[in-house]
């Protein structure tokens, strides 16, 4: 079709002024938008009230449908499980037997660990979680990797607190509303997590790649220490993330590091647990011999 000519509305002065005024408003709108954008780039936590309120309104919409989507996702797996029931049963039984032996060994090691810590008067780092919420959505149309958590400042969530799932680290809180908050996932490009390798304890840096994976770079220069299947956990260096939370497993080696996949899949994680910010340099409380009650830490 032929586009209408918006340029010349005829000889009417009024119509011409109207067009010009419209153009001015549009240009002014772009200017205001760019100013807002500059403000949110320079200070991402600014305009917090507006964004938080908007998030509070939109989160229940997402939360309502999440259960349905999860049911559909799970249905495929359930059908597959049904067909493989026989062989899976045998394999699982073998696995359980092996796991039980390992579990007993781990419990013994943990008990010994607690005893040694008490002997050395190291305060236990088992701290209660702040709250937990469901992961109800994500920024699937954007290049950032953010998820929405259905818990906000009314239940104690503050900006910067780490969020984990039972399987591993999810990310940290980027902004909060009263009943919802946004989580910067470990796979976001701007999220840097200090980690160490479970095998050998070599320190590394995990940076998101924006496509659901993270990049691991060892802090030491030299040969590549990673092998596919290696698991990295948080090292606790620099604070924020408490140590020994599982982060990712290596899937592929790169030139000077490795590509790893986060252990906690935000799409499958049933809920996110918000934990207090880890502050290693804070004055340690006087050693309390009763803090050995290990609770949580299911991974």
């Amino acid at each position, binding site marked *: *079709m*032929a*586009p*209408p000519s*918006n*340029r010349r*509305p005829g000889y009417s002065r009024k119509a011409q002024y109207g067009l010009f005024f*419209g*153009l001015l*408003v*549009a240009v002014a*709108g*772009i*200017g*205001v*938008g*760019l*100013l*807002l*954008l*500059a*403000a*949110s*780039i320079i200070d*991402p936590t600014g*305009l917090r009230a*507006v964004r938080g309120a*908007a*998030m509070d309104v*939109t989160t229940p919409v*997402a*939360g*309502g*449908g999440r259960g*349905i*989507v999860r049911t559909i996702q799970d249905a495929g797996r359930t059908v597959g499980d049904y067909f493989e029931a026989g062989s899976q049963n045998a394999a699982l039984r073998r696995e359980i037997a092996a796991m039980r032996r390992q579990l007993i060994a781990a419990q013994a090691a943990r008990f010994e660990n607690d005893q040694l810590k008490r002997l050395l008067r190291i305060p236990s780092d088992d701290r209660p979680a702040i709250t937990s919420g469901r992961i109800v*959505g*994500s*920024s*699937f*149309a*954007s*290049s*950032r*990797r*953010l998820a*929405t958590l259905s818990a906000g400042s009314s239940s104690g969530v503050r900006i910067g607190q780490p969020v984990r799932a039972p399987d591993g680290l999810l990310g940290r809180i980027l902004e909060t509303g009263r009943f919802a908050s*946004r989580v910067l996932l470990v*796979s*976001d*490009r*701007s999220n840097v997590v200090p980690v160490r390798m479970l095998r050998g304890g070599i320190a590394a840096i995990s940076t*998101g*790649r*924006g*496509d*659901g994976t993270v990049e691991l770079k060892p802090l030491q220069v030299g040969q590549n220490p990673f092998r596919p299947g290696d698991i990295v956990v948080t090292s606790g260096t620099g604070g924020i993330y408490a140590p020994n939370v599982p982060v990712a497993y290596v899937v592929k080696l790169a030139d000077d590091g490795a590509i790893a996949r986060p252990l906690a*899949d*935000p*799409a499958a994680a049933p809920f996110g647990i918000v934990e207090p910010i880890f502050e290693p340099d804070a004055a340690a409380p006087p050693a309390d011999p009763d803090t050995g009650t290990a609770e949580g830490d299911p991974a």
Partner: protein
Amino acid sequence: MRRTTLAGSSSYGDTGPLRSQVTPIASTLFASALALLPIVSGAQLLPNFGLLALLSWRLLRPEMWTARVGIALGFAHDLITGGPLGLAMSLWTFLLLIFDFVDSRLIWRDYWIDWILAAFAIGLASAFEWKVADLMGAAGPMHTILPHILISVLCFPAMLAVVARLDRWRLRR
């Protein structure tokens, strides 16, 4: 500016100003709100539905909106999707202005030209969004947004079809 009075078509108009005027805005807002779908994804997969709806309405009904609609709709989009405030607000208004300019230069446009124009707009929008993400410290190689652009461009005809159907319903007596 509205030209329906000049066109003088009797089959359009008089269908209740509410439905005919609210439908485009409501449908664009709804498309923006599709970003709230409870899909949790590890990568940038689905297109920016709000932008696709805006482009569809603009290309289908060039006379319906002036460029300043982008200010309000873009601001709403930013709030709904939780993107950096002002991103869609400035970008959408800018794109609408560009379309106004293109319309004044082009003598004719058909379905394929519409698609090409939309593809350019989507590419421009993705590049701008990538640049903003870059400035916010989420820098990455630029080629990583190419799959997203491709998916969005391929989704555009579907959105155009939906919008065309809505348009027919909107103007039906």
